[in-house]
């Protein structure tokens, strides 16, 4: 389960990626942040951002709150 959730529903890319990029440095290393994002581009861009930034993309889940993407702070 994620340690915290950022709700980016209704936001268009790149906003969900920017929200993740803003939040991750503020949480302790190892923290899992879940990004709720219904823009289809988030499915491509959140994993790509993790790869570019050396953060860990844990996967996506499609729950009652819509598509969500789990990211773990690595450094």
């Amino acid at each position, binding site marked *: 389960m994620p340690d915290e959730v950022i709700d980016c529903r209704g936001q268009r*890319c790149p906003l969900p990626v920017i929200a993740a990029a803003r939040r991750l440095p503020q949480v302790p290393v190892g923290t899992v942040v879940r990004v709720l994002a219904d823009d289809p*581009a988030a499915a491509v861009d959140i994993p790509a951002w993790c790869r570019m930034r050396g953060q860990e993309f844990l996967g996506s889940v499609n729950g009652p709150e819509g598509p969500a993407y789990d990211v773990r702070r690595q450094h």
Partner: protein
Amino acid sequence: MSASPVYLDAATAAPMHPVARQALLAAFDDGWADPGKLYTQARRARQLLDAAREATALTLGVRADEVSFTPSGTTAAHGAVLGGLSGRHRVGSTLVHSAIEHSAVLHAAERHVATGGTVTGVPVDRLGRLDLTAWSAAVRAPGVALAALITASHEVGTVQPVAEAAAACAEVGVPLYVDAAQSVGRVPVPAGWSVLTASAHKWGGPPGVGVLAVRKGTRWESPWPADEREGGRTPGVVNLPAVVAAAASLRAAAADAAAEATRLAPLVDRIRARVAAEVPDVEVVGDPVLRLPHLVTFSCLYVDGEALLHALDRRGFAVSSGSSCTSSTLRPSHVLEAMGVLSHGNVRVSLHRETTEADVERFLTELPGIVADLRAEAGVVGL
């Protein structure tokens, strides 16, 4: 500040070749009659059409009677897919295609599925290159009627292993359709295909002319209502002046293709290197070596693709984008998605015969500041 325009979207439509313009004007004078009729004006039109077909066939390395002119590249792609499937419906109803086909091919595939057919998409790697192992397995499966592969990605420029893909198809007797829209008139298309399509406005011909080539012996059946024109492969009278112009410009483009590739490929190399070095947080995508000579794509982190296009347009630069915000469907490019690369802040730059080194230099000089300004406006500097 008004800047002189720099058009960098040849992959959508190349500026018309001067030869195309001349041929178009000349054909308006004596190429307006219906080439199917039996009077003097029609015979002149027929001569022009035959000459255009022969010239195009020569460039493609096929027989003239294997070439049909269609009302667009899209129509040619639709016909190639649906006709290839129809011709082999007794063998099966599966279409195999790469995950990075042009939307025209994918839309034809959707039609095939809607009428009860099946499709198998074959993935690409991070550089946009076809997974040949998956491709070979897919075409080997029972019931495959047709396989479709783009010769080189229209979005990221990665050249596909057409010869290897064709060999895999040949082993199991599956015809290969190649969408060669970005290659014809620029780079050679490897042999081994059964059906090929191209689009004149990609090589400097006029818009509204497609090419559909079907090799002899291919089981291809027109998906359209019957029409005897163009070998029975595409209905309706051709736009003869445009066809004449398309053929003339193809011959000219093909004659210059090697020299143009030698001139443009280093400019693309320069864009790849300088964008990566001078724009922070950018991902230059596509294969750095096995690529088209005229096309390069990159994505800028945290930048809105539509805002970037508009900012570039204000400075005189015309480019394209695969970002979702620039598409009518608001979905990111399926090509970038299949590659797993960043889709926002995406820019595709494609060069042509009129592109100068100075144009590229001005683009490279102004781009870092444009991206920096957009990031500053969005408050994403230092993220």
